[in-house]
């Protein structure tokens, strides 16, 4: 009595398998294999490092509200002062183009470093932001700097605790934009404003040591 039941189960299994095989073939046959696209490949990147420092690749200066027609592009330090009526702004520019990075390349990490020659007490928070209009370092003054335009602040940073100490931060996005063709007019460093602050000063590219430095780690296709 039990044998016929087992046989019927096997029969059912075999039948289902045959049906499944047939329908699988039918489904596969609906694919137009010859009309499909398929491609795979890789783009290996080349890595490079460019370090910019010194007066041949850097321009820097500052402007002084209380001496509004003066230019300080040959000074060995640059000042940032917050007080209304005697504000000072620093400007710095690096010749990023001299690194020879193609416009199809990218800055993977760009680090800007300044060394303080004098520090305010208490510490101040300074703002670095890109300049978005053209000017000439050798002739910029407080007066003509008033017509300059600026981009979104790149970084806010605290002044170092002591003279001789450095401060560094990433400026990768700005440098990346310059590599890709955005005009490079450098950065301005300013203080948000106060009537009780004291001056922060940084060494410039005219100094014998502790010059500003921009290091760019970059890639290209």
């Amino acid at each position, binding site marked *: 009595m039990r044998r016929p039941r087992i*046989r*019927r189960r096997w*029969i*059912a299994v*075999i*039948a289902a*398998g*045959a*049906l499944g*095989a*047939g*329908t699988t*073939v*039918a*489904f*596969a*046959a*609906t694919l*137009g*294999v*010859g*009309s*499909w*696209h*398929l*491609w*795979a*490949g*890789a*783009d*290996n*990147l080349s*890595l490079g490092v460019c370090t910019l420092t010194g007066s041949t690749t850097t321009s820097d200066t500052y402007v002084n509200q209380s001496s509004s027609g003066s230019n300080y592009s040959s000074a060995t330090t640059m000042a940032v002062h917050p007080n209304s009526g005697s504000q000072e702004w620093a400007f710095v520019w690096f010749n990023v183009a001299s690194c020879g990075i193609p416009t*199809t*390349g*990218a*800055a*993977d*990490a760009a680090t800007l470093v300044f060394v303080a020659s004098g520090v305010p007490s208490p510490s101040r928070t300074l703002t670095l932001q890109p300049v978005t209009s053209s000017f000439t370092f050798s002739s910029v003054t407080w007066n003509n700097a008033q017509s300059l335009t600026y981009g979104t602040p*790149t*970084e806010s940073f605290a002044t170092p605790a002591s003279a001789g100490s450095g401060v560094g*931060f*990433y*400026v*990768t*996005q*700005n440098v*990346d934009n310059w590599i*890709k063709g955005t005009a490079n007019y450098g950065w301005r460093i300013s203080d948000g404003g106060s009537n009780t602050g004291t001056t922060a000063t940084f060494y410039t590219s005219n100094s014998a040591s502790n010059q500003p430095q921009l290091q760019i*780690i970059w*890639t290209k*296709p």
Partner: protein
Amino acid sequence: MRTLSKTLGFAVTVAATFAACAAAATLALGSTTLSAGNAPVASCGVSSLTGTQSVNNSNNVTQVVVSNIPAACSGDTLSITLADQNHLPLGSSSVTLGSCGTTCSATFTSFGASVTAYLVYSYQFAVVGA
């Protein structure tokens, strides 16, 4: 045994019917010739692709733009994997290419994770589509 034979016969008949339908489905109805065989899977004309990445001040990749993709790839899916120096994936993304003019371009803006730019040593691409 008779039951088994009948059932197997039925199953084989049904399978053959499906297979026949399958063979019929490969026919190009509008054509006047008939052939059968294997067809190679072709690319849409891509021989190489390059990407250009943008980076934020945290040194993370914010986007990768791939341009000069042949227009024949319109409608295909382009996938990208950002890989490190050991070819291990750091992040990946894919887009469907729209209708293009002379060439297509694609912009990838999300990779499933933050990708540190200086760890990226290669872009791995795949183009798949009908």
